[in-house]
């Protein structure tokens, strides 16, 4: 592979820069400027926000997101197996069955444990003595 093969990539990058630069520049030159408080406020389409948005997302969302990341990535191995399914035969099926059993075991545990449950009360059983004192 030579640097020539990367030429389209370079052209693409230059085009992208030119387009973005031109769009910003043209709108700055030609657009009328009559700012008001409402218009300057971010993300509210000209309407003043009535309350401050919540500063932090509740942790229960993190839990779902993190579990998603784990289960999502595990699937990688199935692609490798599926692409050589015929060659691997029963050995491959056996190996993937063991792998899937462990993934499902984790899912069953997480489910039963209440981690997919957004109602936090169900997790109260898993607080330590000190957690309860603090709560």
């Amino acid at each position, binding site marked *: *592979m*030579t*640097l*020539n*093969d*990367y030429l389209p990539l370079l052209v693409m990058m230059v085009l992208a820069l030119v387009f973005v630069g031109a769009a910003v520049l043209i709108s700055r030159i030609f657009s009328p400027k009559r700012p008001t408080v409402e218009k300057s406020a971010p993300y509210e389409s000209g309407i003043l926000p009535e309350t401050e948005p919540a500063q932090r997302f509740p*942790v229960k969302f*993190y839990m779902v997101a*993190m*579990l998603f*990341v*784990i289960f*999502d*990535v*595990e699937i*990688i*191995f199935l692609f*490798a197996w599926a692409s050589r399914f015929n060659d691997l035969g029963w050995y491959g099926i056996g190996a993937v069955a063991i792998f899937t059993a462990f993934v499902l075991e984790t899912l069953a545990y997480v489910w039963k444990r209440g981690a997919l449950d957004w109602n936090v009360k169900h997790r109260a059983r898993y607080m330590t003595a000190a957690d309860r004192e603090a709560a």
Partner: protein
Amino acid sequence: MIEVTAGWYLSLAAVLFSIGLLGILVRRNALIMFMCVELMLNAVNLTFVAAGRALGNLEGQVAVFFVLVVAAAEVVVGLAIIVAIFRRRESASVDELATLRG
């Protein structure tokens, strides 16, 4: 025209890895340090793929699968720990974690 050999990729990976390592050493926000670790792991992935291609065998590409999965597991555990700390202290700076020293 210049030939793009495996050496180029290995050098790029080395630079990325060094940036990640430097970030760990100079930054003090746990999340940023965490992202630097991810950068280091991706530099490793690039090394694996480039070396696999140059050597003409598949092991390098297979290795990337495993590194990716391990990185995902680390992300989850790391974020859980950072969230636990943040709930307690409202800060993700490791400089404030100075109870343990001596």
